[in-house]
């Protein structure tokens, strides 16, 4: 049992974030979202609900889109993480999806946007890998890329809430990068 004054248990981990290795000592209670924002100064991923309900904290970890608010950092030793800051690669370039969000005015306040972008990048890879969704025809052949129409995009992006209601622009931006 930890006494009031004893330091909380922690461990040293190494993870790569946007291609750069970081070795940190983390309190076991630290979630990835707080590690990114507080320890690494990467404030792109946003803290919305902090309970996995809004998607504002979505990042890519181990090639999957995940809610970083529910991931204990200590479980990620050796992991590869990509945040919105890393979507465009090393330089200042924007990812085609970021360009499409600008073109389609796919945000108002912008708070959910980093999560929407990371989620959409992960979602496009899932569909390309043949992952079905709730609205995919169950009779569609397994293992083939799934064509993304509007109902598919809306269903697959349902884990990212936008309180400004920019959904029509978000769906249009995602459609732009598919075409």
């Amino acid at each position, binding site marked *: *049992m*930890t006494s009031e004054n004893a*330091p*909380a*248990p922690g*461990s040293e981990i190494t993870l790569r974030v946007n291609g750069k290795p970081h070795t940190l000592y983390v*309190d*076991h*209670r630290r*979630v990835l979202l707080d590690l990114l924002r507080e320890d690494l100064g990467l404030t792109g991923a946003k803290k919305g609900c*902090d*309970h*996995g309900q809004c*998607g504002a904290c*979505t990042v890519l970890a181990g090639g*999957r*889109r*995940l*809610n970083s608010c*529910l*991931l*204990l950092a*200590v*479980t990620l*030793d050796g992991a590869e993480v990509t945040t919105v800051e890393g979507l465009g690669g090393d330089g200042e370039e924007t990812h085609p999806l970021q360009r499409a969000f600008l073109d389609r005015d796919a945000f108002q306040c912008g708070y959910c946007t980093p999560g929407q972008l990371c*989620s959409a990048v*992960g*979602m496009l890879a*899932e569909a390309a*890998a*043949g*992952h*079905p*969704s*709730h609205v*995919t025809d*169950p009779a569609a052949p*397994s*293992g083939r890329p799934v064509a993304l129409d509007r109902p598919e995009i*809306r*269903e*697959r*992006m*349902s*884990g*990212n809430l936008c309180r400004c209601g920019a959904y029509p622009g978000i769906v249009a931006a995602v459609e732009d990068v598919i075409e």
Partner: protein
Amino acid sequence: MNGFGYLRPTTLQEAAEAYAAHPGARYLAGGTNLVDLMKLGVERPAFLVDVGALPLDGIEELPNGSLRAGATVRNSDLAADPRVRDRYPALSQALLAGASGQLRNAATTGGNLLQRTRCPYFQALDKPCNKRDPGSGCGALEGVHRDHAVLGWSERCVATHPSDMAVALAALDAEVELYGTDGTRSMPVADFHRLPGEHPERDTEIRPGEIVTGVLLPAATAGMPSAYRKARDRASYAFALASVAVVLRLADGAIEHVGLAFGGLAHKPWRARRAEEALRGAAPTPAALERAVDLELAAARPLEENAYKVPLARNLALDVLGRLAPAPAVA
């Protein structure tokens, strides 16, 4: 949140030993429910045994034609597996009807079975809840309970089990496999979750320290027509108000095999044994289907706010049964 120790073992034996050596330990898998409950203060583990590095992340075919899904297989991967989609469509559909893309990428087979109720009284430390704090009372029974149970509840607890996946597994006659220091065992998923009775703090039949190692999808129901349908407050990303999984095979115009389970109605996935018994051997006429479903739902005891669940569940069941067993043509 209190601090806690952490270990990421690579063998089941190490994991079970670490759990036994640390009072107040919990197993951690995807964390989508446990970490959330830790933030809420509902769970306060002194030690976490991370099962993420255990060799439980595969989906394998067994010589007898059954399919074993490891406990740490992600919900998204299980739903997308061609063998699951082709042979057990209700399971794939149930998984895809749950949570969001991000959560399904983290959530695991074992964690999904062991997730706790989303009853708001369970999640709020300032409210009474016999499941969280035995003896404190049930806030939902005479409180806000629109989402709560209509079947099998007790005065102690009216919570529902939130899983979609487990409802399909129950209908498919899947088994859950467990590892403990006393050895391994398995039991039907339909018997794994408990009714609340006098002890709502116990969700399942799992013993302290046991680890879910996987679920076994039987050869017997492989390839049978099956489907899952869920009703919820919005089109996506919401828990079930009511749901149904049906596995059904016809032979010579009669129902040869049927597995029917409801979600969102009870403290466990509700296997509708009475309805199944009435349907087995019967011709799937609309009257026969209605009689069977009504027989099952006659046991419902709705609360003040959730009587809507009974006709909702009835209609869902009749829809899916009717789709899988088209009514015989009138001569």
